[in-house]
C-alpha cells in the first residue's frame, strides 16, 4: 500500500471538480477519464491539499485545470522532470502525472524513461489517442503504420512505439492498461495509486475529431468479451464467452517461448493449461504488453506490479544519513580548507 495515502480524508466526486469550464471537444474520451479520476480520488481517501496534478502540453495536459487540487500545467514533455523536483522537495505530495502519446512518448520520451527508471513514487497516466489532437491531427509516435494525416498524406511509414513495452524496458515496476469509457478504469487507477513507486498506466482515449473510434476494434461494447483480456492477479487469463464462440485462455507455448490462445472446454482452464496471472512475473509481463492485437485480445488491467524502493526514499534517505551529526555552521563552512590570518 502507498503509505503516503492520506487516511480519513472524506471527499465526494463534487469536491474534485474545479470551477473551470472544461474545454475538450464534446464527446472526447478525456471527459470519461476525468470522471473516472474524480470518482477514484474520494475512494482512496485522497486529500485535495496534498494532491498535485502535473501535466505537459496537449489536450490531455489541460486535465489539471479541471481537478480541484493543486495543479501545474508545465511545458511540452517536461512534466516528469517538474514532478521529480516537486516530489524530492515534498515527498508527502501525491503526484498524478498527466501526459499523452505525443507529450510522453515523443518530445518527453527521455524524461518519461528516466522518471520510470528512477522509480519516483507517482502515477503516470498516459492518454494514448494515437494522434496529435491539439495541433490538429498530425500522426504521433503511437500512430499505426499507414496513418494518413496532414504531415503523412501518403500514410506514415514509421512503426509505432508501444508505451507499455517502452515503460517496461525503462524498468517500470507497475504497468497497467485501460481505456477511457471502461468501467474498470477506477480499479486500475486505485491499483496504480496503491503501488509505491512509478506506476505507469496507458489509457486508450478516443479522439473523436482526428482519430475517431480508433480503438473500437477492442473497446466497442459489442464483442468486448472476445477482444478484451482483463487481467486479475491470481486468476486465470480467460476471455470470450459461451455465446460468442467459446471460452478461451492464454497459455504458454513452451516450444516457441511465447503466448498462445487455447480453447477452454467445459470451463476446465487447468486442463487447457491457462496461465494464472501473477502481477510479479516480469517475463510474462513482457509477453503481455507485446501481444499482437487481432491474433490475441488486448491485454488490459494491471499487467505488472512488483514494487521496489522509490527514488525519493533512496535519495532523501541518503541525504538524511549524510547530514547526521554534521557541523552546520555556515561560518565554519566558509572558512573551510587552508586558511591564513592577516594581522592588524
Amino acid at each position, binding site marked *: 500500500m502507498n503509505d503516503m495515502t492520506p487516511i480519513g480524508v472524506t471527499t465526494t466526486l463534487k469536491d474534485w471538480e474545479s470551477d473551470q469550464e472544461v474545454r475538450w471537444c464534446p464527446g472526447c474520451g478525456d471527459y470519461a477519464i476525468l470522471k473516472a479520476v474524480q470518482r477514484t480520488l474520494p475512494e482512496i481517501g485522497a486529500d485535495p491539499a496534498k494532491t498535485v496534478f502535473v501535466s505537459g502540453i496537449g489536450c490531455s495536459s489541460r486535465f489539471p485545470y479541471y481537478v480541484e487540487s493543486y495543479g501545474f500545467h508545465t511545458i511540452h514533455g517536461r512534466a516528469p522532470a517538474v514532478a521529480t523536483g516537486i516530489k524530492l522537495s*515534498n515527498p508527502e505530495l501525491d503526484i498524478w502525472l498527466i501526459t499523452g502519446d505525443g507529450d510522453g512518448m515523443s518530445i518527453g520520451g527521455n524524461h518519461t524513461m528516466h522518471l520510470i527508471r528512477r522509480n519516483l513514487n507517482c502515477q503516470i497516466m498516459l492518454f494514448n489517442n494515437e494522434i496529435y489532437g491539439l495541433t490538429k491531427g498530425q500522426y504521433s509516435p503511437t500512430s499505426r503504420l499507414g496513418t494518413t494525416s496532414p504531415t503523412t498524406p501518403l500514410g506514415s511509414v514509421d512503426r509505432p512505439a508501444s508505451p507499455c513495452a517502452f515503460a517496461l524496458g525503462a524498468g517500470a515496476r507497475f504497468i497497467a492498461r485501460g481505456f477511457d469509457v471502461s468501467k474498470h478504469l477506477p480499479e486500475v487507477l486505485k491499483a496504480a495509486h496503491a503501488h509505491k513507486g512509478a506506476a505507469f498506466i496507458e489509457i486508450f482515449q478516443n479522439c473523436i475529431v482526428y482519430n475517431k473510434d480508433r480503438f473500437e476494434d477492442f473497446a466497442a461494447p459489442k464483442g468486448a468479451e472476445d477482444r478484451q483480456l482483463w487481467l486479475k492477479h491470481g486468476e486465470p487469463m480467460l476471455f470470450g464467452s459461451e455465446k460468442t464462440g467459446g471460452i478461451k485462455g492464454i497459455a504458454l507455448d513452451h516450444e516457441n517461448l511465447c503466448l498462445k490462445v487455447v480453447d477452454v472446454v467445459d470451463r476446465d482452464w487447468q486442463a487447457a493449461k491457462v496461465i494464472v496471472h501473477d502481477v510479479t512475473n516480469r517475463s510474462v509481463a513482457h509477453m503481455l504488453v507485446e501481444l499482437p492485437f487481432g491474433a490475441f485480445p488486448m491485454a488490459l488491467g494491471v499487467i505488472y506490479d512488483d514494487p521496489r524502493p522509490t527514488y525519493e526514499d533512496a535519495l532523501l534517505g541518503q541525504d538524511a544519513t549524510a547530514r547526521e551529526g554534521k557541523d552546520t555552521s555556515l561560518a565554519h563552512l566558509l572558512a573551510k580548507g587552508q586558511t591564513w590570518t592577516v594581522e592588524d
Partner: protein
Amino acid sequence: MATQLAEPEASSQASPESVVIRFAGDSGDGMQLTGGQFTLSTALSGNDLATFPDFPAEIRAPQGTLFGVSAFQINFGSTEIDTAGDAPDVLVAMNPAALKTNVGALKPGGLIIADSGEFTKRNLEKAHYAASPLEDGSLAKWQLLAFDISAQTLESVKPFGLGNKEALRCKNMWTLGLALWMFDRDRQPLVDWLNAKFRKNPVLAEANIAALNAGHAYGETAELSGSLHKVHLDPVEAPAGLYRTISGAEAVALGLVMGAKLADLQMFFGGYPITPASSILHYLATMKEFGVTTFQAEDEIAAIASAIGASYAGHLGVTSSSGPGIALKGEAMGLAVMTELPLVIVNSQRGGPSTGLPTKTEQSDLYQAVYGRNGDTPMPVIAARSPGDAFECAIEACRIATQYMTPVILLTDGYIANAAEPWKVPDPAAYAPFPARFLTTRNGPDGNLLPYARDEKGARPWIKPGTPGLMHRIGGIEKNPGTGNLDYSPAAHQAMTDARKAKVDGVAKGIPAQEVTLGEERGKLAVVGWGSTFGPIHQAVRRARGRGLDVSHIHVRHIWPLPENLGDLLRGYERILVPEMNTGQFKTVLRDQFLVDAKPYNKTSGQPFTIAEIEAAIEGALA
C-alpha cells in the same frame, strides 16, 4: 575596433612587486595540480594572487602534441593583484609542445625552465620543431635553463622502487619543489598535503615528497650557476582577518548556500554535467547538511524543470550550466517567468557558438541572458566580476529571485569558475536575512484565492502545494491577472505582459546606484565593463591614470535591469569604451537603453584581456 594583441612589456623590474609564472606541460603531467598547490603556498605566504588555468577540452589528449598542452598561470605579489598577469616572467615547459605553445607569451628576458629530458627527437617532431630550440639559439631573447628534470626525478625517487611510469609522474612535484625554492616558500604545507592525499599509499607519498625536496635542493645548488636566483616577495598589505583561496565555482556554491539560508529556504539544485559548470554541482553535492538537495538530471531541460518543480513546492530551485546548456533551458525559463516562481540560473559562460570552446572563457552569452527567450520574457541578470565577487552575486541572485518571485540569471565565465584568488572569509552574521514568505490563507477581498495578486514590488504570493484550502492551478499558458485562471483575452495578455515587465523593471529600485569603481564621476573617458574583465580593466585604468590620463572605470554588476542612475552617469563622460570578450553585446544594451555613443573593444580568442591590451585601447579612445 579590431583586437590588437599586446606587445609584451619590455621593462624588467630589479625588485619586482609581482611575478607571473606559467607552468606548461602535457595534459597528463599534472600541471593544474602543480599550479593549484603553488597557489596555495603563495596564498599561505601572504601574497595577493590571481590565477588562470588554461587546459584543453580533451581529458588526455595524445601525449606530446601541441593541442594536448595544459597550462596554469599565476600572478602573485606584494601589491594588489587583479589579473593573472599579461606576460609570464617565468615559463616552466615540461616538453617541446609546451614550450612551443607558450614561449611567445613570455616577457623578453624572461626565464625558461625546460625539461631537456623530454626534448627527444620524437617529441620535437610532435611539436613540429625541425631542430631542438634548446640548442639552435632560437630562444636567445630569453634566459634558458634546460636540464633533465625527468632524469633528476627518476634519480630522486629511486629508493622507492616505483615503475618508470609511476616514477616519472613525480616530475611535477620536483618542478614544484624548484619553484618553491625560487620564491622562498615553505614546503611543509605541501608535505602535509601529499601525506594526506596518499594516505593509503605511503610509498607514493614518500616518493613525491622526495621529488619535491630534490627539486628544492637543486635550486640551492643551481644558484651557483647564476641563471637561477631566489626572489622574495613581501606579503601584500591586506585588511586584517581570516583568508583562504577560493575559485569562482566554489564561491557560487557557497553563495547559493548562504543565499538559501538568508531566504530561510531549503535549496534544490538540478544540474547536468557540462564544462565549465559541473564543479558547482560537485561542490554542492558535498554540502547536504546545509539543507541542499542535489539532483543530476537526465538533461539540461530536466535539470531546470526539476528546479522549477522544487520552487513550486517551496524550495529554492537552482540550476546551472554553460552556454549550450542554457540554450536548452530557454523554454523552461519562460515557464518560470510565466508562473512567477523563484529560480536561480547560473551560466558559467564559455566560448561559443554551439560546442565552441568548452574549456575557454568568453562573455558571449549576454544577449542570451537578457533577450534569449520566446515572447516578452523579462528576467533579472547579474554578473560576477571575480571568484570572490561570485559569492556576493549568488546571494544577490537568491534575494532577487525570492523577493520578486522571478527567475534570475547569474553570469560567471570559465575564467571566474576555474580561477582562484585569496578571499577574506566573510562573517555570515553580517548579511541581512531576506526570509521568504508563503501564503497560508486566502488573500482575496471576498475570501477567495488570488494566486496572481501582487504586492508593492509586483510580486505574486508563493503558495506551497500541501497548504489546506489554497488549491489552485498554474501553468505556462496566459492567465487572468489575480485568479491566475486560464485567460487568453486581449486584456489579460496586455495586463500580464505589462505586470511581468514592471516587476522586473522594478528590481532596479532595490539595487544600489552604480558607482564609479575608479576615477571621477565625469570626464573624458569611461571604461565600462562587466564580469571577469574587471581585473585587466581596473589595472589598465589605474596605470593610465598614473600617467595622467582622464579615464575612469565603471564596472556593472546588475546587467538587467540596469542601475537607475547609469544613464546619467554615462552621459557625464565625453567618450565611453566597453571592452568585452564578445563582439559587443553589452555595448549594444547600453546604446539601446541610454542612446549613448558606447564604443566597443572586443576580444574573442578564448583568452582574457591583458592589461596592456586595454591600456592600448584606452590610449586609442583618447586619441
